[in-house]
């Protein structure tokens, strides 16, 4: 049996920026069998659908989920208290494939930044370029440094780090890296993919889509990809959330 539901004890659930929470769950075993870029499907009492949240970190027996309060589900999550059991389906999906031998640029935009942390922890001295709308939304900068990454911060309005976009920095530094991994809003992912294509660097991107089952059975989280010249439907929960950027049909 590949899947199981786990009831994980909530260790802490604190706001780390405006509307952004850091939920830490005790996994029970020290080694959490999760790949960077995979996600957890979190049960929210009273809701018909679980909420997919990327694994932000999974070291030392602590599963860390960093999430932004968007609607009712994440609001209820933010009210969960220390000691409660949180019902999660984890790990799900296919994460980033990283190779210790290669140099990575890890790009995160906004609430797409969290999964890049555990990814950074799997890479050798990666370059972590993270972008936020403005200062009060900046998260995880020290964590990236601690994970051995060179952390470059940009904000749209220049209120923290450099003013500009992640792609500005990527363009400047792309020569240094072998491969790029990214997570963030779709326009950012498209822009990152374009830069990578231009410079001929492989690029993996993590996509979002509304989900139900989270395991590939219900087919709701469709994404169009091009494989061997043919456009086919794949599913973010099962085939992704991480896809080869070249294969994704944006606006499909």
């Amino acid at each position: 049996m590949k899947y199981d539901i786990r009831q994980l004890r909530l260790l802490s659930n604190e706001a780390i920026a405006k509307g952004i929470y850091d939920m830490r769950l005790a996994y029970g075993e020290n080694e959490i069998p999760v790949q960077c870029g995979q996600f957890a499907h979190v049960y929210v009492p009273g809701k018909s659908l679980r909420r997919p949240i990327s694994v932000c970190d999974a070291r030392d027996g602590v599963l860390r989920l960093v999430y932004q309060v968007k609607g009712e589900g994440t609001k209820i999550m933010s009210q969960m208290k220390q000691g409660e059991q949180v019902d999660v389906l984890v790990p799900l999906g296919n994460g980033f494939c990283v190779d210790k031998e290669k140099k990575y640029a890890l790009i995160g935009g906004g609430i797409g930044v969290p999964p890049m942390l555990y990814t950074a922890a799997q890479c050798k001295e990666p370059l972590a370029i993270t972008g936020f709308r403005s200062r009060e939304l900046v998260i995880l900068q020290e964590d990236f440094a601690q994970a051995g990454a060179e952390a470059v911060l940009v904000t749209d309005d220049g209120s923290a780090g450099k003013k500009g976009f992640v792609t500005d920095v990527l363009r400047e530094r792309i020569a240094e890296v072998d491969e790029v991994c990214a997570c963030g809003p779709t326009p950012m992912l498209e822009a990152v993919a374009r830069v990578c294509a231009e410079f001929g660097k492989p690029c993996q991107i993590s996509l979002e889509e509304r989900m139900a089952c989270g395991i590939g059975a219900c087919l709701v989280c469709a994404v169009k990809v091009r494989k061997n010249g043919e456009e086919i439907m794949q599913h973010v929960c099962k085939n992704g959330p991480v896809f080869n950027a070249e294969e994704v049909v944006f606006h499909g």
Partner: protein
Amino acid sequence: MADLSVKVAGVSFANPLIAASGTFGFGREYGEFYPLSKLGGISCKGITLKRRDGNPPPRIAETPSGILNAVGLQNPGVDVFIREDLPWLKQQNTVVIANIAGNTVEDYCAMAEKLSETDVDMIELNISCPNVKSGGVQFGTSCESVGQITKEVRAHCRKPLIVKLSPNVTDIASIAQAAEAGGADAISMINTLTGMKIDIRTRRPIIRNNTGGLSGAAVFPVAVRMVWQVSNAVSIPIIGMGGITTWEDAVEMMIAGATALQIGTVLFSDPYAPVKIAEGINQFLNDNHIASVTELTGTVIPW
């Protein structure tokens, strides 16, 4: 241990819990939670004659105690199903039901022919999918068309034939009678109620198909009512579904008139739901000294 086995149209199920079409794929994924033999059966994702890509996303939205979906019958086509999924499914020791949908009556008949040559256990005629432009629900909303398509498919079908009804109709009992008259061996109901959700910020429907099908606990009282009405109108067995979430719901649906049940939306919050429901029914039967689950069917005592 009470006897949980039921029979529908001559087919024996180890228990009345069947995974609902479209929520369970072809079983492989949920088979990674528990052996599929824990279920009475599986109604497979709706299949069509040719491969379909389905609707563009988003295909799902959440509503109070329910969800809207508009997958639009994404599936690999009947031939791929028969070649790649059915052999695996048949090894899982559970009843396998093929759910078929088409654009034309001929499509349905062609699929029934193909599937009749396989060892699939039953065929479920999906004439109630609200999420595709043609094919699906337009066959399912008038007595004439339901009677006719049932009759035509019946002539091509050498498997027990279940007709799945849409709740988006004025008089579900007459529709069920038309299916029975057309030769259906069983009725399954309800498919989803058409609904809509709009993002007030963008003024866009959340579901890309504009409307979607409502399922989950919210629709349960409507499903119970319809199962009761249909069970008073036909003599073929009913596979009841629509919002069953707890074992109490399952018992209620059987008391209303269902012989077996399909379980869909609740899987998304609890993948183990059908297994837990089977256990709950068993406990209920034991506590009430009821030997067989079949003794529940249709025992409602109306005022």
